[in-house]
Structures are given as structure tokens and as C-alpha cells.
């Protein structure tokens, strides 16, 4: 049985999801020969540290660790530096302008030779190549499946299952909120504002939806894909971004009458995010909050994957897969 000591930094929706998934899957992980021990959890209010493992139930019941759970006032950087661990799960809120605080957390962990698994796009958008180099220099692994397609196995599919193929392009729907809004506008004839309001009431869209509907989230994902899969050196500003806020009910109806849907499509290495016409018969013609991505390869043709793009447990499942991959497989996916 291999013991993996984990420091979790960030304890919001995804952080709670990860704790819940580890709790639920403990037996399955043991069957794989892995004993995941979360030795510390840190949020903006403090840290809970238990040498023999934090009981996830303790943390799952509170909104912040300040509610009688924290036993230390250590911040994220201190927790990563001072607590003995093998791997850091970095799930703090994302910031694509400067990447902090996640960027600092990842740099600290990788410098110490600790593996990093994250759902936090910001640091990867700002400094993917630097972080990857840092991991390589210190013999650590950096895994980030959850940053790109939620539960869609995209990075691992490209790096592992399609190894040997040249990846010619990836395009698809990478934002469940936009897909939900466009689906409801087309199916119900709702105007944009009403569909957005419905999405907000259902918790699918944030109170400030700009990050999703203006295409920022999708562009961040394209930045990560361009750098990781295509070995480019792309910054967020290199992506040509148009969101969905100008889409009208009438344009959706015109498209539908001619056998098309309108979807927000991200494309690499084209480096574009924009609404596009998708034929109804296309495998990318998925509705609701689903994401879908088509990977064009030289040997295997075009492969399309689809899956839930967001959600606490769904994102945590991608984090868990990354962790299991690190400790149960050889490093063929770290060739970059």
C-alpha cells in the first residue's frame, strides 16, 4: 500500500468536492494500492493539520475553516512549505491576470519536489511553461486535467491514449454555462437575458457571468491547451475572443431552420473563441451544460469526447484521476 500525503490548498466548492470524493472512494483507492491521506487543508482563514490524516467529514460540514475547524493560522504557502507531503492539491479561486495565489502555491510545491494536481486555470494561463519546467527540474509532476474540460478526459486522452499521433487541432464546447444558455434560447425561444437569469437561478451561471459568457473561461482553456498539447508559448491575450452576449433568439431560429445550432467554440491551434454554426448531425451538437471536444489526429482521425464541464464532484473526479495516474502509471505523459 502506497501512502500519499496530500496538502490541499483551497476549500471552496471544488475543495469540498475533492474531500467528498476521497471519502467516498477510499476503498476503491485501497484496491488500487493507494492510501490517500489528506494531512492538511488550508483556506483563506487558516489550516487544519492532522499528521495522520484530516477526517473529511470535519471539513465538509463548514463553509470556512474558521468555523472551529482550523488548528493553525498557516496560510497556503506556509502549509506547503512546512507540512510534510508528497502532493499538493491546488484548488484556490482562479485569477487569469496574475495567477495568484495559486501560482505561488504551485511554485513552492514544485520547487520542493512535490507533485501538484490542480483545477485552477489561472496559474497555468499565466505561467504554464515555467511551471512545467519547474516540475521537470525538481522531478515533480504537474497535472491539470480538471482545468480544461471538467470530466472530459482530454489531456490524458491526448497524452496517453493517443500517444504516437500528431494532434492537428482541437475544437469544441468548453463552457457549460454558455452551452446551457444557448440551448435554452434555441429550445424555448428565450431572449439572452432571460436564459441567463434562469441559469443563475439554477446555479449554473455566476452572479457576475462575464467570465463565462464573454468567453474568458474558454479562452483560458485554449491558452492551456495551446501550451500543453501543442507546445506553443501562448498568452491569454493571444486568443481572439468573442462571447455569446450578442447572440439573438432570431439568429438561433435562422440557424435551426437550416439544420444548425449556434455554440461557443474554442479552437487550437487557431487560438479563437467565438460563436459558430454547428450542424445538428455533428458530434459537437451537445445540449445543456455538456462540454464536447473533437481532437483531430493524423493516425486516428477525429475523436470526439463529451462530458460534464463543471460541478463540484465532477471536477474533483478529474483531480482524483490525475492523482491515481501519477502513482499508478509510468511517466509517458511527461515527455514535454
Amino acid at each position: 500500500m502506497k501512502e500519499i500525503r496530500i496538502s490541499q490548498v483551497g476549500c471552496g466548492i471544488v475543495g469540498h468536492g475533492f474531500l467528498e470524493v476521497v471519502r467516498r472512494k477510499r476503498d476503491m483507492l485501497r484496491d488500487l494500492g493507494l492510501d490517500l491521506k489528506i494531512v492538511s487543508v488550508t483556506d483563506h482563514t487558516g489550516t487544519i493539520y492532522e499528521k495522520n490524516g484530516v477526517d473529511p467529514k470535519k471539513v465538509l460540514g463548514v463553509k470556512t475553516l474558521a468555523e472551529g475547524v482550523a488548528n493553525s493560522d498557516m496560510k497556503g504557502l506556509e502549509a506547503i512549505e512546512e507540512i510534510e507531503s508528497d502532493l499538493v492539491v491546488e484548488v484556490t479561486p482562479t485569477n487569469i491576470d496574475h495567477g495568484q495565489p495559486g501560482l505561488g502555491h504551485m511554485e513552492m510545491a514544485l520547487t520542493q519536489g512535490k507533485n501538484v494536481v490542480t483545477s485552477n486555470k489561472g496559474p497555468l494561463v499565466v505561467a504554464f511553461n515555467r511551471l512545467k519546467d519547474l516540475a521537470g527540474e525538481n522531478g515533480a509532476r504537474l497535472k491539470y486535467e480538471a482545468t480544461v474540460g471538467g470530466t472530459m478526459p482530454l489531456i490524458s486522452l491526448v497524452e496517453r491514449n493517443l500517444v504516437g499521433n500528431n494532434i492537428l487541432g482541437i475544437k469544441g464546447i468548453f463552457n457549460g454555462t454558455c452551452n446551457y444558455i444557448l440551448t435554452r434560447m434555441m429550445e424555448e425561444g428565450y431572449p439572452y437575458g432571460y436564459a441567463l437569469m434562469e441559469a443563475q437561478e439554477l446555479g449554473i451561471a455566476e452572479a457576475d457571468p462575464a467570465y463565462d459568457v464573454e468567453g474568458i473561461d474558454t479562452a483560458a482553456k485554449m491558452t492551456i491547451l495551446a501550451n500543453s498539447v501543442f507546445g506553443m508559448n501562448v498568452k491569454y491575450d493571444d486568443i481572439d475572443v468573442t462571447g455569446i452576449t450578442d447572440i439573438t433568439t432570431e439568429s438561433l431560429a435562422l440557424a435551426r431552420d437550416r439544420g444548425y445550432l449556434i455554440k461557443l467554440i474554442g479552437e487550437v491551434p487557431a487560438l479563437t473563441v467565438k460563436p459558430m454554426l454547428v450542424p445538428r448531425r455533428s458530434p459537437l451538437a451537445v445540449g445543456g451544460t455538456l462540454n464536447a471536444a473533437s481532437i483531430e489526429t493524423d493516425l486516428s482521425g477525429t475523436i470526439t469526447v463529451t462530458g460534464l464541464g463543471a460541478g463540484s464532484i465532477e471536477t474533483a473526479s478529474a483531480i482524483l484521476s490525475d492523482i491515481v495516474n501519477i502513482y499508478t502509471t509510468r511517466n509517458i505523459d511527461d515527455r514535454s
Partner: protein
Amino acid sequence: MRLSMDLELQDVPGQLILALEPFRLYKGNIISVVHHRDRKTPRGTIPVQLVFEISGSRIEQVKNHLKKNNISVVRIGEDRFVEEVSVLLVGHVVDSDLGDTINQIDSTGFAEVVDLCLKMPGIEDPSSAYIKIRATGKEEMSKALAILREVGVQKDLLVIEPIEAEML
């Protein structure tokens, strides 16, 4: 040059081979053959549609050979357009001179707007237009779409392109 041809064949065995024979003889490249066995004409003949590429100087020889083989040529015409895409424009499509937008494509000589459908919900509201563009090739279609994108920027129109072009 690329041409399309409508033929009518007698409903007896071997006619299709006779119809295709001159294309082999005069080095034509057949792109497609559609043999409508289920759609006989009132005269009892079977319509066939061909698309092919051939040197312009050999068309008359093909036609003469078909005549000699007793095959009726109903129509022959240049088939210029091989690519087709649907595009949506959203914004003040009409106020920003839709005629000019279409003309910028048509005036290229290699692409044309062949279909248009417009929805205008209100005077102040943005309109939406569906247009279908045909072009003489992939490269020409890319150029036409680039022109449309540029027009979109100038006229503040959202240009929604398809994820893939369609072969005609």
C-alpha cells in the same frame, strides 16, 4: 474546367457505359455520376447528372461522341462553385447597408451570396441575417470569409461561421 452535364439514356443495358466512354477517350476526370433509374422521363428515358473536369478544347469532341453513341445531352454548363458555407450576421445588418455587404462578396468574382433570409424583430433591435455563400474553391472560400469578417469589424456585425465548409 469543371462542368456539369444532364443526359438522358435509353432504358436498355449498357447505356451508362456508352455515356461515360467519351470521358475516358478525351481524358475527362469524372467527379460524380448520379443515375436516376427511379425517375424516368415521360419519354421513358433515364436522367443522368455528371460533374466532370476536362480541357475546354475537348468539350465539343465529347458532345459529338455522345451524339454518335445516341445519348441525348439535355444541358451542359460550367459548374463554377464547389464550396458552400452558411453564415449568420447579427447586428444592424440592414442599416449598415446589407446590399454593400453582399456586393463585397459578389464583386470578388470567385464567390457569390446565393441565399439570404432576414429577421428584423424591431427598428431598434439587432437584426439577424442568414446568408449562403458559394465559392470556386476552398482557398477562395477562405478569402470570401476573410472579407466578410473584415466587413463585420467595420460595420460592428457579429459574423457566425460554420465549424466546417460543405462540398457541393
